[in-house]
């Protein structure tokens, strides 16, 4: 099998037209809810501006805020660990688990642990982690990756969930009533929560001033896990820091409205110190982020608060599905982040985009997403990852467009071929023609028309003068 590419994976996705329409409509509805929610707040654009500036300031002083955070967290009784990459992140967590001797544990949603492939790593060591976010749990049962960072199972319809539950937790066959299915999930997960002694969570915001973290969920599953656990391990990327609690209000107002159109997530939980007798660990991870931080072109991408508004608005994402992006983080922001981890494997992603710019305008922290994708394209081609055929045709195009005579000659040849030998162009090898007609070839280019017209006007004037 060749390496996965977006254009081919998306072709397979689109082959199921009804499902594609459903996916597109569902996400567009979420986007609409976001529009409605943001329109209720007159100061919405100002909030975006502030959030963007706070993040810009924080990123410029990241070393400072991270050390302040560590100091304050330590003072609160939290143990802070630093991981340079995914491997270190997984090893640290494994180390903690081994030390405590706990074997039953739960995890709430964390894109970072997905990015580090923590589940697989622990599984290899014989440790089973149960994902407790409903969507995450469904895809965990199916051994799939999230197709969306907020709605990880959005590629599935209720019948898919019914089938999965029937197979794994013996629900009634073909009962796809959402209430029935969620109740079944709740009962099943409740038992796991009760047994679990260790909770792994993500982090939405880490506040330097207080040394505490904030976790936003709609299901309360992070809280449920942490409250019953003797050990809480929270994992965060270095970019999750904000300076003060004051700033949190801005981000909380933006996050849920951008994500789902809710005014606020059902649970915005603050964890500032461990309970008596509880251990609390925070693992702070780099894993390529400092590379972005050091790059003026892409630094802004670290402002991301993972709201997924850019996914929901992206026409390409909506119509091609998250798995077409063959990465943990799909969608527009993923297409910026993934080439940073592996440019060769992800060279196709910045091109899976029409540069329509919708993403940059919904982004609550004003990341210029589409411009960054444009810049990635330049870098990918310059470094030779664009493919030989494309490079060659671009060189030819550059030559033609730089030489007016050659351009006119080629233009004529193209038009005449299209007019008199259409089969050379109208064939199945031409990806324009497979599902679209070619434009009708005019006899003359505009330039030819223009010159002729000028000549005839010039003549007319002279005839007038002469007579």
């Amino acid at each position, binding site marked *: 099998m060749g390496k996965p590419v977006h254009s081919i994976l998306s*072709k397979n996705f689109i082959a199921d037209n009804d499902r594609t329409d459903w996916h597109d409509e569902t996400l567009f509805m979420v986007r609409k809810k976001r529009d409605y929610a943001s329109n209720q707040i007159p100061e919405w654009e100002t909030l975006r501006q502030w959030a963007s500036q706070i993040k810009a300031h924080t990123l410029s002083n990241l070393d400072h805020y991270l050390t302040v955070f560590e100091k304050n967290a330590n003072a609160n009784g939290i143990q802070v660990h630093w991981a340079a990459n995914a491997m270190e992140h997984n090893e640290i967590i494994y180390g903690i688990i081994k030390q405590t001797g706990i074997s039953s544990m739960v995890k709430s949603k964390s894109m970072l642990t997905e990015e580090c492939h923590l589940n697989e790593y622990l599984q290899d060591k014989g440790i089973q982690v149960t994902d407790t976010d409903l969507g995450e749990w469904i895809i965990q049962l199916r051994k799939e990756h999230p197709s969306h960072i907020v709605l990880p199972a959005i590629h599935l319809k209720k019948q898919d969930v019914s089938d999965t539950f029937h197979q794994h937790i013996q629900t009634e066959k073909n009962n796809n009533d959402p209430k029935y299915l969620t109740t079944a999930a709740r009962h099943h997960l409740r038992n796991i929560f009760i047994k679990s002694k260790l909770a792994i969570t993500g982090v939405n915001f880490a506040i330097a001033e207080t040394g505490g973290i904030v976790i936003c969920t709609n299901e309360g599953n992070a809280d449920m896990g942490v409250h019953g656990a003797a050990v809480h391990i929270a994992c965060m990327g270095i970019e999750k820091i904000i300076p003060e609690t004051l700033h949190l209000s801005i981000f909380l107002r933006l996050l849920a409205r951008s994500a789902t159109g809710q005014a606020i997530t059902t649970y915005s939980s603050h964890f500032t110190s461990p309970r008596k007798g509880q251990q609390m660990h925070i693992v702070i991870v780099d894993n390529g982020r400092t590379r972005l931080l050091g790059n003026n072109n892409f630094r802004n991408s670290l402002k991301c608060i993972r709201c997924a508004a850019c996914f929901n608005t992206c026409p390409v994402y909506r119509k091609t599905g998250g798995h077409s992006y063959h990465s943990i983080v799909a969608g527009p922001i993923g297409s910026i982040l993934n080439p940073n981890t592996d440019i060769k494997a992800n060279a196709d992603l910045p091109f899976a985009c*029409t540069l329509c710019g919708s993403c940059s305008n919904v982004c609550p922290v004003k990341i210029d997403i589409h411009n960054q994708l444009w810049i990635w394209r330049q870098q990918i081609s310059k470094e030779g990852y664009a493919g030989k055929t494309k490079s060659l045709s671009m060189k030819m195009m550059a030559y033609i467009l730089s030489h007016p005579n050659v351009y006119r000659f080629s233009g004529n040849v193209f038009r005449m071929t299209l007019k008199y030998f259409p089969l050379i162009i109208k064939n199945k090898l031409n990806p324009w023609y497979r599902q*679209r007609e070619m434009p009708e*070839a005019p006899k003359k280019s505009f*330039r030819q028309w223009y010159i002729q017209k000028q000549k005839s006007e010039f003549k007319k004037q002279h005839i007038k003068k002469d007579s």
Partner: protein
Amino acid sequence: MEVALFIPCYIDQLYPNVAVATLELLQKLGCTVSYPLQQTCCGQPLANSGFSHLSNKCNENFINNFSDAGYIVCPSGSCTLHVKEHLESQSHPSKAEKIKSHIYELSEFITDVLKPKNLSASFPYKVGFLTSCHGQRGLHLSSMSEINEPSFSKPLQLLNNVKGIEIVMPRRIDDCCGFGGTFCVYEEAASIKMGKDRIRDFETNNVDYITGYDVSCLMHLEGILKRNKSRVKTIHIAEILNSGTNG
């Protein structure tokens, strides 16, 4: 008012009627219009494919053609935006800067610079309006559904002036049509799906025409419409604004 026409390469070769309409329209609105004869292309197909490092000579050619122009007007939002954002020159940086600040997309040139009282155009058809992304979000030719801002549209302001026309907006007012430059061939499946969905949105409104300010997007939709034997036709905004004003 002196205007130099920038006619993007694919309009020059495949849609000369759009260029003719642009020229005639500007003349009727009182402009002295010239067409610099050695122009080729703005280089957008190269740059959006990641090959802006090959576009130096193409850029220099553009600058040679247009650095003397007062106003530069182009019947394409996308190409105008490309020039504004990415025209660069090692040898003539100030000329490039001047061009970037003097180039206009056709409809914004009419609403913002010429400001005619009326257009005396007539087009008695039901017309769906396609909002092309680069002109909208890049040049801000109209407000966008993403942003909390007062609604406006420069091209619609002009079209609403046309006699007999009935303008219909699609249900998804500014979703992308899927052209996207070389995206339309490298991501064929997605591009076609996006195009078909836009068309369905228009067809449910029973329009006679789909219009807009970007021939490239219209060409993509036209290709799909014709393949599916639709009765709906595409037409550039310049052709509508120039209609019924002849003579």
